[in-house]
């Protein structure tokens, strides 16, 4: 009878340990990325420099790098030159677009090099498109392949090496992204 109780307690402790191990095994603040491998949500946004509309359908056929940023976000300022460099360096491989997140046009215009023609910026009125993409903060960078499939996203300021690596992966048809992808 005592053995039965002991076994029961051991079982309960085991289940509890399992639940806790699962819970502590991951970062509770990490927002999962569910759109990986799915078709990127369609959008029509206005260019900050020319005011011309840009739709995702127009961009099909060549990989797209979408970077969400805001002028009030300090890490974005740090990251911006990397993307501006990437846009020039990988101009033949991908189209780079920045999306202004929760900011005024005036502030966005004053940001680093927003009017760089190789890295056009788009205005997302009321962040409708950002919510469609599951943006959970800025900066975030999304990688869409030539077929319009979302292949991954990078949370936080991206560095040149990661950017180059992700772009190389974008060229390969539907290969799984590296383990860092979220």
């Amino acid at each position, binding site marked *: 009878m005592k053995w039965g109780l002991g076994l029961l307690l051991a079982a309960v402790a085991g289940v509890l340990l399992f639940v806790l191990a699962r819970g502590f095994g991951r970062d509770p603040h990490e927002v999962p990325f569910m759109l990986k491998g799915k078709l990127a949500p369609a959008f029509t946004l206005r260019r900050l420099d020319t005011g011309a509309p840009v739709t995702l359908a127009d961009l099909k056929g060549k990989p797209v790098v979408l970077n969400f940023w805001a002028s009030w976000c300090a890490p974005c300022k740090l990251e911006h030159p990397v993307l501006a460099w990437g846009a020039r360096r990988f101009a033949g491989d991908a189209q780079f677009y920045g999306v202004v997140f929760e900011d005024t046009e005036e502030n966005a215009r004053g940001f680093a090099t927003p009017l760089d023609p190789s890295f056009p910026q788009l205005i997302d009125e009321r962040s409708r498109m950002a919510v*469609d993409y599951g943006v959970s*903060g800025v900066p975030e960078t999304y990688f869409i392949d030539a077929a319009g499939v979302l292949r991954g996203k990078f949370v936080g300021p991206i560095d040149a090496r990661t950017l180059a690596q992700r772009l190389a992966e974008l060229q390969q048809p539907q290969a799984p992204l590296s383990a860092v992808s979220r």
Partner: protein
Amino acid sequence: MSGLVVALLLAGYAPQQAGSTPLDPAREARVQALGKQLRCPMCQGLSIADSGSSAARAQMDKVRELVAAGQTDEQIRTYFVSRYGEWALLEPPAQGMNLLVWILPGLLLLLGLLAIARVVARRGPGAAPAEAAGASGAQAPPEVDPYLEAVRAELRR
């Protein structure tokens, strides 16, 4: 102080837009109820209805837009889960691994009650006669039944 104000005015500020126009009361109540169920990605354990962050406001706008478009509560929850995962729901649905969260507390309570009942039952027959004997010696000595003794001995083990 005035220097700080000037600095703040000159620096790029984080603009806070007001939420989109509320719907009619009945549908707006649905928007708020749904907002309470959805987790704000930038905050710590807050719902998007309770948060003042701009990302939460954008998501509330989206909820309002979807309600206005005639989507059901389930469809709207699915919209957010398909983007932010089950993480987006403040209350996890009672299925799969999550079922543990719902069942375990009740189960533990039940086990505790069972353990208490067991202790009480075990102490009962052993302790009660001793107590009774101490309280009133006039009572008749407990009958000696070999079978009952065997059961008690079994219980005491």
